[in-house]
């Protein structure tokens, strides 16, 4: 799994390098970050981190660590998990840049967003 993410990142990097010179450095720095940043934990009725910034092509995994079920639902209808009971996971791969706000459709006060660059 880690290997395939790396492959995607490398491919993205090659494309990125061909475009803008100044953005290149940041991109390299991001691509070298550890894969933990692709994890969102649901704890105490909140998403952590509430805002996650990832490169295009990243697969983000949400894990419910509460005693109560939650969902991960894109506000704009891009993705929608099934109900996640305790310790259940949901993953989504972001293939396009943009800002993706989402919430728990059971407890709509719980909101978060993924920024894909």
């Amino acid at each position, binding site marked *: 799994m880690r290997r395939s993410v790396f492959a995607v990142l490398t491919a993205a990097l090659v494309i990125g390098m061909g475009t803008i010179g100044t953005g290149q450095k940041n991109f390299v720095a991001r691509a070298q970050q550890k894969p933990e940043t692709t994890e969102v934990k649901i704890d*105490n*009725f*909140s998403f952590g981190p509430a805002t996650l910034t990832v490169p295009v092509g990243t697969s983000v995994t949400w894990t419910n660590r*509460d*005693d*109560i*079920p939650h*969902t991960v639902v894109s*506000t704009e209808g891009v993705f929608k998990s*099934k*109900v996640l*009971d*305790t310790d259940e996971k949901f993953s989504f791969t972001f293939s396009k840049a943009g800002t993706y*706000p*989402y*919430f728990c*459709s*059971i*407890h*709509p*006060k719980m*909101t978060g967003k993924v920024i894909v660059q």
Partner: protein
Amino acid sequence: MADRVKDEILHDHNDDGIDRRGFLKCMAWAGTGALCVMSGGVLKSYSLSRLPDLSPKEALGELSFVQISDSHMGFNKPANPDVAGTLKAAVDKINGLSAAPEFMLHTGDISHLSKPEEFDTVDQILKSAKPKDVFYVPGEHDLLNDDGKQFLERYGKGSKGGGWYSFDKKGAHFIGLVNVMNLKAGGLGTLGHEQLEWLEDDVKRLKHSTPIVVFAHIPLWSVYPEWGWGTEDSAEALGYLKKFGSVTVLNGHIHQTMQKVEGNVTFHTAASTAFPQPQPGKADSPGPMKVPAEQLKSVLGITDVNYVQGQHALAVVDSTLA
């Protein structure tokens, strides 16, 4: 007798039937068991232990029903590994009431994960209750994965839209509302335009003297919006009920008893039969609260409601399962 006079409300400065001290007293009893009787426009409160002193008419009224809530069948975490057992204890409590209630209201979260077997288990347990009719409204846990299709098939016969309906019993008008569908990011419970229109129309024909009982899952008053404990458009719904002399609003969702009186409206939330939740803001989140096993039944419960015809009296009594 002297004691009894002391426990009634004698000062009513605002002509709204409630004095502050009496209301606080009523609040303090919630959870341990309180009886609040609205009679002739005056709210009187008694502790549960004093019930034997009341005449049957005062205590029981002509219409008696019981509210249960938040059974969360399927929940199996440390806060209560046996929610079937505590629901059975609630049924035992109901069957032990001195006057058998005519019917039951279930204010939602029947199931924990909307699984068919969870609903089946609740149905099976409630069959042993003396009252045979149960009126349901859904909680958010009952509509998971299928937008409520299964809930409507099981419990929504004769209901409108997302499951709302009304019925009359002995001169009182009951309204079951659904405020757990189509929830918006960052928002609270919501009734929605279609349901509000239906409500306005539903109560149009009723006399102002008709006692109204509204029941819905999420509180229709702002208990603690930070935890989503409120309903976005409840003010509009309550606006249609302003003309009525007596309105009682029964909710669940927050797994604890709470009461508030505003004008002619009495708001009341019931305890869960499954597990308690913390008081508003008293924990990091509204997640299940673990209490020592021997205390669990003292924080779970049922709510018994009595109505005295012709006296505008609705009495709300909470009892724990302990």
